[in-house]
């Protein structure tokens, strides 16, 4: 591998010599390569904007075309409105079988407005492809693991968020129409861009009896009047009017469910968990992701990107669910490293540290499939000034950041408007791409840090190796063959959740090259205590190989030799070794 890199650099140097620029450190004309970034990407991407569905597909296609042995673009299904749910598969396709390598599943954008998970996961695919053959650790990762990257599992909602007038919080739902107000009509009273400026912002109205005033620090900022002073304004909610004439404004917006409460594990009806929708998997996007994961038992780790708040979340989402203790130890280790990689982010448990959430995706992936799963809540106001946010009376970090670093671009100034129900009002407020997502100059840094956490998790997925195969003649043509099977990484081949519910098949440790008459798992090699496998002895079923642990397997074989021992772990890969 090192040889390979030197070779490439030599070629680059030769090219530079020809062009008359002779700096050995430079990998690109006119620049010194910055560490951690591909200096000469085959697919140039500007990581300072938010991509629509077509562009995500194009970047995926370009990557697959530029890196045919590292990257493939596929689709896991169609959204409600018929958009492809792109999956970018990244691995070294020249080494091993994709479906037999431990898999890391990454998705983003389950909530329509929580967009940057798409860029971060797309960045991950791009970075892995472009850094291959450059950093040995990247090559190991791609030799040993496969990444399944679905940049958006909610492309309809993404498209709506990007291309229509919206707030930072709308839409959260996907595009399947629902009757939110129970009148038998669907999506008949949505928020409206009244002044046609392309944004849904807020409405305020002058009212001597209102309780709000403008801040002396920033006149755009509405604050409460002091308790003993009169106010000047009242707030009238989001921009919109009563479309269906029922007297309520904006009471039946588009969609009307929460795609991240639509998953089967601990799913409960809508009246217990808002947004649950009619049944788990009622959404085509949910079903597509489930099918994809169920069909790939090699997936051993998962990340589902959300925003915002700076959290490295794990389940459970509800208090009476329980993550199994052996799994919690692995989660805790991964989470602790994540907090170092991601300043301003905290490792948290959904129900305990955030809120109760039934039927979330991360709980299904762990609970039903036994896969270690995180959801990072991307971006945090900590990032505005690289320090925790404190409450202020007359200003806020958002307004200050907008003034000092964005020159006011984030805010639509208050502008008069004659409202059909409310009369003279003013419309204004922050744009949708402020508050929950970072500005352009911060995107790549955030993407990189979050990616590095997922790469750490991917690297710590199980990796099974046949460590040694020892033989001992037993007389009478019998040989005792003992193999030590090691898991070289932090995560077990089967989580405790997986083992206890028999979700994925056991690791198969198979001996070939002789007639196996008996086999056993040596539970205590020092005291030579073992448990016989009475049926089908050649293929020994091992329920789990713990992280950084070993399992010792023994056979009694008649004749044959040398013997080959193959460890075939659904989530830990396949490896063989031969006896002498």
């Amino acid at each position, binding site marked *: 591998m090192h040889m390979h890199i030197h070779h490439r650099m030599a070629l680059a140097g030769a090219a530079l010599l020809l062009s008359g620029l002779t700096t050995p450190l430079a990998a690109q004309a006119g620049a010194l390569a910055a560490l951690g970034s591909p200096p000469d990407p085959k697919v140039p991407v500007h990581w300072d904007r938010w991509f629509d569905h077509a562009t995500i597909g194009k970047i995926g296609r370009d990557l697959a075309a530029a890196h045919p042995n590292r990257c493939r673009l596929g689709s896991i299904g169609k959204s409600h409105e018929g958009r492809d749910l792109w999956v970018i598969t990244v691995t070294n396709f020249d080494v091993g079988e994709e479906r037999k390598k431990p898999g890391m599943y990454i998705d983003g954008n389950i909530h329509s407005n929580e967009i940057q998970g798409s860029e971060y996961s797309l960045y991950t695919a791009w970075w892995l492809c472009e850094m291959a053959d450059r950093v040995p650790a990247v090559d190991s990762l791609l030799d040993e693991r496969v990444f399944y990257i679905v940049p958006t599992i909610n492309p309809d909602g993404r498209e709506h968020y990007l291309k229509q007038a919206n707030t930072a919080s709308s839409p959260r739902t996907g595009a399947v129409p629902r*009757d939110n*107000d*129970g*009148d*038998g009509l669907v999506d008949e009273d949505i928020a409206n861009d009244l002044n046609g400026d392309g944004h849904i912002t807020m409405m305020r109205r002058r009212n001597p009896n209102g309780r709000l005033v403008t801040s002396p620090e920033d006149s755009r900022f509405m604050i409460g009047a002091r308790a003993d002073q009169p106010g000047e304004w009242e707030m009238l909610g989001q921009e919109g009017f009563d479309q*269906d*004439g*029922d*007297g309520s404004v904006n009471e039946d917006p588009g969609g009307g469910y929460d795609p991240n409460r639509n998953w*089967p*594990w601990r*799913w*409960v*009806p*809508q*009246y*217990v*968990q*808002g947004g649950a929708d*009619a*049944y*788990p*998997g*009622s959404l085509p996007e949910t079903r597509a992701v*489930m099918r994809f994961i*169920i069909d790939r038992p090699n997936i051993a780790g998962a990340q589902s990107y959300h925003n915002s708040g700076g959290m490295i979340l794990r389940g459970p989402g*509800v*208090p*009476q669910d329980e993550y199994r203790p052996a799994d919690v130890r692995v989660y805790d280790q991964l989470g602790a490293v994540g907090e170092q990689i991601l300043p301003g982010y905290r490792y948290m448990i959904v129900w305990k540290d955030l809120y*109760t959430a*039934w039927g979330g995706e991360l709980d*299904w992936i762990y*609970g*039903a499939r036994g896969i270690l799963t995180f959801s990072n809540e991307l971006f945090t106001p900590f990032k505005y000034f690289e320090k925790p946010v404190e409450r202020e009376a007359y200003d806020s970090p958002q307004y200050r950041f907008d003034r000092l670093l964005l020159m006011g671009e984030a805010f639509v100034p208050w502008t008069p408007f004659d409202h059909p129900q409310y009369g003279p009002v003013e419309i204004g407020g922050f744009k949708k791409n402020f508050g929950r997502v970072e500005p352009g100059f911060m995107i790549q840094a955030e993407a990189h840090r979050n990616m590095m956490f997922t790469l750490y998790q991917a690297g710590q997925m199980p990796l099974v190796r046949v460590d040694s195969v020892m033989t001992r003649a037993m007389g009478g043509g019998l040989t005792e063959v003992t193999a030590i099977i090691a898991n070289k990484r932090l995560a077990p081949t089967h989580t405790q959740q997986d083992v206890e*519910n*028999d*979700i*994925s*098949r*056991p690791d*198969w440790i198979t001996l070939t090259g002789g007639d196996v008459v008996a086999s056993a798992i040596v539970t205590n090699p020092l005291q030579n205590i073992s448990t016989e496998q*009475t*049926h*089908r002895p050649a293929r020994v079923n091992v329920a789990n190989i713990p992280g950084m642990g070993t399992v010792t397997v023994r056979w009694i074989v008649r004749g044959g030799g040398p013997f080959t021992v193959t460890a075939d772990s659904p989530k830990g890969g396949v490896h063989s070794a031969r006896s002498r």
Partner: protein
Amino acid sequence: MIVAPWARAARPRAVWHVALAAGVTALAGLSPTAAAAQQGASWTADASRYHTHARLTAALESVRRANPSLVTVEELARSPGGRTVHAVRLGAGATVGDRPALLILANAYGPHLVGSEIALDAIRRLAGAYGRDTAITALLDRVTIYVLPRLNPDAAEAAFRRPLHERLRNEAVTDDDNDGTPDDDGPADVNGDGVITMMRVTDPTGDWMADPDEPMLMRRADRAKGERGTHRVMVESRDADKDGQFAEDPEGGTDISINFTNGYEFFADGAGDHQFSADESRAVVDFYLAHPNIAAVYVLGAQDNLMRPWEHRRVPGIGGNPQGTSAGGPYSAILAEDEPYFAEVSRRFKATTGLTGTPLSASLTGDPASHAYYDMGRFVFASRGWWPVAPADTTRRAAGAGAAAGGAGGAAAASTPAASGDASMTEQRAAVRWLRANRPDGLIAWTPVQHPDFPGQTVEVGGFHPFARWNPPAAQLDSVTGTHARFIQQLAGMLPQIAIRDVRVARVSDRVFRVTAHVGNDGYLPTLASIGARARWPQRVRLELDTRGEIASGRKIQMLGAIAGSGATEEVSWLVVGDPGSSITVRASSPVAGTVARTVTLQGR
């Protein structure tokens, strides 16, 4: 996929006959009376009377063709075995798709063929009586009945091919034992009698023993009571994949009757990957969403809440928080306000059908019945349709009411025998006694068999004949289905029915009028169950005031909460500023209760 139905009937008939002949000759210790009964009760007749999928398809098509303006049949889904899940709509007139409806679900539980028979018979009887019977004609002019007669067609088909086996799963291929080879170790007809029963191995290390009250039955030894295990018990099978386990990876995938949401058990045998992972069950919940006019549901299957109605229980939720909230978690019992309706409909069911006894109700774990209530927010009534009752009880019933209970009835299960064991054992003992007296070929005595996996050990095969505990003999089928058809008619008559009693106009001032409307429900069931008022999917009554004037007080459109049945009335009023002499219209509509409108003139003193 409609095939010539009757051409196929011959084969299963023969199968049943051969199968039972073998079983019956093996049955030992029959009393003379039982032996006599055996002559009369032949499974041959049953096989030709129950409907294979092909025959069911043909029967539905036939009733549709005979009543084209009354009956439609659609394909709702396809099973993995390629069989259609049918949806039948029964009702007359142009508004048939948009008015109060009863939904009938049957045969999600594979062996429960009688559910399909009841559903089919109800369609035939009601359709046949339209235009002849005044009450039924009026009923089908007012309400719609949807029938999904066979939700698990793959599993049900196992009743019609050899070896006969109470199969629960559809024909999806799954690797239940995670050994890399799907469907490689299922039940097997070890003794070659054409039926799959149970198998017991004499083994002092086993946990099972013969039930002292009914020695044909095996039950777990209670070591705390000093009972010793004498046997191992398993489904009749061979260890086909040689892993030391028996029938742990049977053919097939999902048991539709446990693939719904409420109480769903992940990882249970046959439960599927998740709730509604099977197309057959997902089609049901999608059917609800497409039909907001479903006001009540009748489920024929393994659950019962008509002989023993569901009751409200006050159960604290998680951390002492109230159930039905995010903090407290889902409900584990019906709501207090709904309880009287379950009780009353149960009372009416018993009165109409004459059925007695307390058939065991399977647990509410992913079943279609509790889904209808807790998820879809509908009143749901569930029946096993038919169940065997111990002869002693039958005698008592005969001496008493003598109702035409179609043999399914029996007296009072309140008087369950004070025997040891759980409710399931009690029911099994009753089934043994009933079968011995009424159809001895429903029992197969334990018979020794040579078993390759147990060399040198005593292995016997025997137990209940497949389907005998779930389905009545053919001779009783008409009576059983007719009984339920009467109840289905009655239940369809209980659906809510919206009414506007009056719209009064009072003049407040010049152009100012107070409009007061009374909106009522003339059906029996409320326009919303209490659970329905919480659940999102049942719709409220939408009340709209149409006027060219200005509504000064009150809302142009409003959604009304539950209006109780039996004539209960809600009052709504508006202040309208408009021209005297102009007309206004009050319109009340609900998918489950119908639409009514009343137009009045703004005038008065």
